[in-house]
C-alpha cells in the first residue's frame, strides 16, 4: 500500500470476514465481487468506517487498528447476512481518509424517499459542509452529470431505480471525496442505467478518487483496475481482472455436451468445460473437431477458483 492508497490489511470481522486485504489506489476503481453473504457489505462498511472512526477531522489519512476489545454483538443491525450471527471481533487495520473525505452509498439506498432531489442534495451538502459557491457549482455539476437537473422538485421516492442510485451517488460525491465506497450500486437497475452508472464511476476515478465498488456482476468487475473476489468471508481471488483470467489453471473448452458436468457450466447455448491441470485423461477424450478451446474471462476464473478451492466438496471435484 503506498501512502496515498486506502484499504484494509489482514481484516477479520467475525464471523463475516477472515483475513482480508484490500488496496484501493487513488484514481482507480477496485471491485469487490462475491455472492450474497460473501462479506462484501461488511468489508465496505468497515472500510468506510462509522461514527468515531476518524475522530480527528483535520488529519488526512489514518490507519486505525481494529481490535477485538469491545463486543459488537449488541449492534443488532450489524449482523452477518449469511449466518445471521452478530458481527464480533475485529482485527487488522483500516486505512481511510478523514470522514469529510469519504463518500459512501449503502446497499440499495442512501437517500431520503420523502425528500425532493434538491432537498436530498442540500442535506448531503450540509453534512459534508459544502457551502456557498462550492455548493452551487458542485450541485449543478452533479445534477447535470446524473441527468437529474430537470426535476429538482421531484420526490426521491418517485424516481426510477436508476435515477435513485444516481441521486445517491450525487449525494455521496458532492464533497469530492478522496475515497468513494459504493455497495452494489447497480443491483436491480436496468441495463442502460447500469452502463450510465459505470460511466459515472469511471469518471470519478479519472478525477483521482479511489473508488471501491461491490457488485455481484462479473462483467462489471472486468472494468475495474483490480478485483477482489470474496467467498464465504475469505479472499478467493485478487488482482487485475485480465491477469486473473490469464492465469486460470488448466484449459477451457466450449462444447455441446460436457465431458464432466461437475466441472462445466453453461455459457450461452454451449457448455464450457474446465480441464484441470493434470487431467490429461479428460483432455484426451475431447474431440477437438466441433469443440473449441477458449481463453478464460474473469467469470471463468472465478468459477474455476470456486471449483478448486479446498472446501469445495470432494464429490464435486473427484467426480
Amino acid at each position: 500500500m503506498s501512502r496515498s492508497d486506502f484499504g484494509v490489511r489482514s481484516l477479520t470481522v467475525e464471523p463475516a470476514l477472515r483475513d482480508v486485504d484490500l488496496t484501493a489506489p487513488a484514481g482507480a476503481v477496485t471491485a469487490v465481487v462475491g455472492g450474497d453473504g460473501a462479506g462484501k457489505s461488511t468489508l465496505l462498511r468497515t472500510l468506510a468506517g462509522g461514527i468515531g472512526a476518524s475522530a480527528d477531522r483535520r488529519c488526512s489519512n489514518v490507519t486505525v487498528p481494529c481490535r477485538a476489545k469491545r463486543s459488537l454483538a449488541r449492534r443488532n443491525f450489524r449482523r452477518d447476512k449469511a449466518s445471521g450471527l452478530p458481527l464480533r471481533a475485529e482485527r487488522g487495520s483500516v486505512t481511510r481518509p478523514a470522514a469529510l473525505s469519504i463518500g459512501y452509498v449503502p446497499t440499495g439506498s442512501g437517500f431520503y424517499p420523502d425528500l425532493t432531489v434538491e432537498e436530498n442534495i442540500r442535506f448531503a451538502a450540509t453534512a459534508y459542509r459544502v457551502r456557498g459557491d462550492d455548493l452551487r457549482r458542485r450541485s449543478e455539476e452533479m445534477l447535470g452529470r446524473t441527468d437529474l437537473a430537470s426535476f429538482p422538485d421531484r420526490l426521491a421516492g418517485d424516481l426510477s431505480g436508476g435515477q435513485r442510485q444516481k441521486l445517491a451517488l450525487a449525494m455521496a460525491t458532492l464533497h469530492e471525496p478522496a475515497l468513494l465506497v459504493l455497495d452494489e450500486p447497480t443491483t436491480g437497475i436496468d441495463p442502460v442505467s447500469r452502463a450510465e452508472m459505470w460511466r459515472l464511476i469511471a469518471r470519478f476515478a479519472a478525477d483521482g478518487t479511489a473508488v471501491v465498488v461491490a457488485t455481484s456482476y462479473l462483467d462489471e468487475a472486468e472494468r475495474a483496475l483490480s478485483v477482489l473476489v470474496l467467498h464465504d468471508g475469505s479472499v478467493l481471488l485478487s488482482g487485475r481482472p485480465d491477469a486473473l483470467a490469464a492465469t486460470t489453471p488448466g484449459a477451457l473448452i466450449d462444447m455441446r455436451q460436457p465431458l464432466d458436468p461437475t466441472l462445466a457450466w453453461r455459457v450461452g447455448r454451449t457448455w464450457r468445460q474446465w480441464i484441470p491441470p493434470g487431467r490429461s485423461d479428460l483432455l484426451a477424450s475431447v474431440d477437438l473437431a466441433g469443440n473449441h478451446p477458449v481463453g478464460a474471462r474473469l467469470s471463468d476464473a472465478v468459477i474455476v477458483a470456486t471449483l478448486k478451492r479446498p472446501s469445495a466438496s470432494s464429490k464435486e471435484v473427484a467426480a
Partner: protein
Amino acid sequence: MLAMIRKEFREVRRDRRTLAMLLLLPLVLLIVFGYAASFDVEQIKAIVYGPDAEVVEPHLPDKLDVVEVDPTGTKQDGEQALQDQEAVVAIVTGAEPVVLIDGSELFSAKAAQAGVAQMSAETGMTVDVEVLFNPDLSTSAVMVPAIIGFILVFIGTVITSLGIVRERQVGTLEQLAVMPFRASDVILGKIVPYLVIAVIDLVLVTAVGVVLFDVPFEGSFALLALGGLLFLLVTLGLGILISTVSQNQGQAIQLALMTTMPQVLLSGMVFPIDSMAASVRWIAYLLPLTWFIRISRGVMLRGASLASLWLPYLALAGMALVVFSMAVFRFRQDLGARSGRARAADGDGAILEPEPQPEAATEVLS
C-alpha cells in the same frame, strides 16, 4: 387451501413477536378487564376534621377508609389535604359541618357524593357538600389532562420509533453513521424534531381543552411543562429502545402497541387506580403515564404545587434517567460509535501513519 393454512401457521410460529402478541395480548386484556377495569370504587380515602371528629368517625359508612382523624383540623386544612391528595373526601365537623370532595378523582368523587346523599336520606340530616377542583364533576375535565399524556406517549413512543426504524429500513442510518456527524448530532437530530412536535401538541391540546371543554387550569404551566418534559424523555427513550430492536416498521408498531396499551388501560386514565385489585395495582405504578396523569390532573385541576407532587416528579425523573440513558447508549451502539473511553483504551498509536508496504504484498492470489 390446506397448504395455505399450514404455511400460515408455520409463518406465525416462526414470527415470535406476532406469536407473543397473539398469546400475551388476550392474557393481558383478561387480567386488565378482570381485575382492573372497574368504575366502582370500593374504598374512598377520607379524613375527618373538626371538634366532633372522634364522635363522627365510628358512624361513618365502611366504604370510607378513614386515614386521619384530627379534632383540631379546619376547613382550610381539609382543602389543603385534598389538594395534596391525602384523601378524596374530607369531613369537617363543627357548627357548620361540610363534606369536601376532590372532583379530580371523578369516580371516587361520584361514589362519595352518592354515599353522602344516601346517608342524608337515612338519617334525615342535611350536610353541605362541596365538590372542589372539578365542581361539575365533568368527565372532560378529568380526561383532557390524561389525553395530554396519551398524546405524548403516542408521539414519543410510536412516532419516534417509526421515524428511526424508517431510517434503518431504507438504509440511510448506515450512511448517517459514515457521514461526518458526531453520534450526538445524529441522536439529537433524530429526537429534537419529535420533542418540538410533542411540546406543540402539549400546548395545543391544553389550550383546546381549556377553551373548548372548560377544563380548569389552576396551577402553573411551567410545572406542567416540566412534568411533560420528564415524561417525554421517558416515552422518547422507549421509542428509541423499540427502534433499536426492530428491523422494520411493522415490528416497531407491534412493540409500541405492547408498551402503549397497558399504559392506556392501567394508568388511571380510564379506570381509577383505586378500584384496581391490589394484585395488578402495582403495575400501574411502574407505568410512566400513571405518574404524568397525576401531575397533569394535579396541576390543571387542583392547582397543586411541586411540594405536593414531588413523588410523581421524582418517579418520572428516575424513569427518564434510566430509560433515556439506556436508549442513547443503545442508539450509539447502533451507529457503531465507540465511546470516548473505548477510544482512549485503544491507547497510544490508535492513529498511525500507514506503513509503506511493497506493492506485491497487496496482491493475494489464491
